[in-house]
């Protein structure tokens, strides 16, 4: 390892804003993305925030660098600027042409890409959102850990670096309780909602982010191809809910329930 500090990779995705009601496109191949507000995937926001907080805690391991990465169309640059305004030091924009509603590269492609980035950039900690809120696939982190042969802890709600040797304790929520795990760097962590509350980028930091390096890359730079193993056949909206009725009194309720065969 070149230096002892943390060299963190934070992959981020540009997705339709969480507050927007998605609509299916006309061809029924995916969600309509044209002219819809996009923002940084909320789970990735948590990863960036955690990386920045690790730096602010100043120890026991110092943060040497925080690299943000996004793969997608030209607008991903905005997302990366947001990541840098929050505190990432530099960013890679891996340009992948946007297809119409095809959802972008598959998780395995991204995991292979990240694998190569980790090796080239000498990364020792990868912080990923546990899932992107568009595809909800939740696979990339796990696949990456597999490819790297690194330990992984998923859906972290607390991350603590314990010593200079790189011992890390991670807490995550499981059925019926909270589980605490201990492992060592290098490591893949995926983030869950309760990990932290992401900050808003301050105006001075937004201005500074404009001057931080944003490098354009291609999948080929990392020896990866955008292979598709899955084909989306059809995407449809859930059936509309039918409204309920209102009954006048208890007798009405009973007779209604009888009528429906519930009594």
């Amino acid at each position: 390892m070149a230096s002892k500090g943390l060299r963190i990779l934070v992959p981020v995705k540009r997705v339709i804003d969480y507050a927007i009601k998605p609509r299916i496109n006309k061809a029924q191949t995916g969600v309509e993305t044209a002219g819809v507000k996009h923002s940084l995937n909320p789970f990735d926001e948590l990863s960036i925030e955690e990386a920045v907080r690790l730096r602010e805690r100043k120890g026991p391991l110092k943060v040497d660098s925080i690299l943000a990465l996004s793969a997608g169309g030209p607008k991903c640059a905005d997302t990366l600027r947001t990541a840098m305004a929050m505190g990432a030091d530099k960013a890679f924009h891996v340009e992948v042409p946007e297809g119409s509603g095809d959802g972008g590269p598959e998780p395995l492609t991204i995991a292979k890409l990240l694998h190569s980035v980790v090796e080239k950039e000498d990364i020792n900690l990868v912080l990923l959102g546990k899932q992107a809120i568009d595809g909800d696939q939740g696979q990339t982190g796990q696949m990456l850990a597999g490819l790297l042969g690194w330990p992984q802890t998923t859906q972290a709600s607390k991350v603590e670096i314990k010593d200079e040797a790189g011992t890390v304790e991670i807490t995550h929520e499981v059925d019926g309780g909270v589980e605490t795990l201990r492992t060592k760097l290098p490591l893949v962590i995926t983030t869950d909602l309760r990990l932290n509350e992401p900050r808003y980028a301050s105006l001075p930091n937004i201005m500074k982010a404009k001057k931080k390096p944003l490098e354009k890359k291609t999948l080929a730079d990392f020896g990866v191809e955008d292979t598709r193993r899955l084909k989306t056949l059809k995407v449809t909206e859930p059936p509309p809910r039918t409204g309920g009725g209102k009954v006048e009194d208890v007798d009405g309720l009973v007779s209604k329930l009888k009528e429906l065969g519930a009594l």
Partner: protein
Amino acid sequence: MSRIQWQRFLWSHRATISSRQSPCRTPIARVPTVRAAFSTSARRELMEMTGFSDEQLTVREAISNICSKFPNTYWQERDQQEKDPKEFHAALAKDGWLGIALPESLGGAGLGISEATMMMQTITQSGAGMAGAQAIHANVYATQPLAKFGTQEQLETTIPNIINGTWRTCFGVTEPNTGLDTLRLKTLATKTADGYSVSGQKIWITCAQVASKMILLARTTPLEEVQKATEGLSLFCIDIDRSHRGLDLRKIKKMGGRAVDANEVFFDHYDIPTASLIGQENQGFKIILHGMNAERCLLAGEALGLGYAALEKASQYAKERVVFGRPIGQNQGVAHPLADAYMKLEAAKLATYHAARLYDTNDGSVPFHSIGVACNSAKYLAAEAAFTACERAVLAHGGMGYAMEYDVERYLRECLVPRIAPVSREMILNYVSEKVLELPRSY
């Protein structure tokens, strides 16, 4: 689900039943509405967003995020209780937004009035209204002349503290008998051994109750003794310290923006140090003139935000409110006034951001009066468009438009501010008549 949504939800169900039974005839009752299930926000903004710069869009998004922490209920409550929105000021200060248009060397962001206007518009449009804008307005704009003409000491002590929110500032120009006629202002700063002694009265001083600084315009040479009417006024950056002798503040009860205080300020031999003078003595009017066009742009932006906010509420309501078996927005009598208000807002928006751009990019090649005309026209058009939108929004809501809960009555009360201040509609018409049409001056 919020309380209001929940009520609407219940009533929308009630509607399905009451249509088969006796219809509800109470004029101002909870209204039956049709509501799209689970939609949380509009897919796109009402305002056309093309044509804005990347910086403006960045500002808009970042400010919207902060404002989203201050819902309409926060502003309703502040308005009712006449309580200063100090959390809102602190939130913006914390992230450096008060320094948006101040130079980077002083800890600001070095952006222009185009971006500051977008910030003010985003604030009013978020539901904060004029109250939200006025809580920070002077800190953004009255600091401009200070940053440009202040001494090193003033810059190093005052500006960083205003940007980080420790100090708030107010702007003291208007006087009871000297509204638009700034050159005749009477507050006198007389030279003493170690500074000046200020006597006189100011009025409509926003935020004076919570401010610790005031950018004050006062006369240092009596009007009778000056060569040119534009001379003899000086600009000061003074402490607002009520424990100090000779200063009194009185709150003015007002129509709108009640969260933010507006005051009469009385000076009676109030001592200020020589170091509080900004720029040269007797040159205050020229210094202040510099910031006036910028202020017009900010006010225009604030008006626009209010107008779009009202229109958004109105169109939403017109879509949901069902009378005689269909949404009221299906009636042209309801729809057309709103469509007309939209076009007026869009036109005013173009005029506003054109004026701001002109102000920012002026390298001396644009005559001063062209910028003045652009900025004044923008303020006029935006204020009128906002008034139209707010009034029609209330009317489209019918009885509910009169209820605090629906916000549009608050917008209507507040949208009178940009119509009146910082310069009346009539004075703008006078200015355009004289400067553009070259008609003889009427006053």
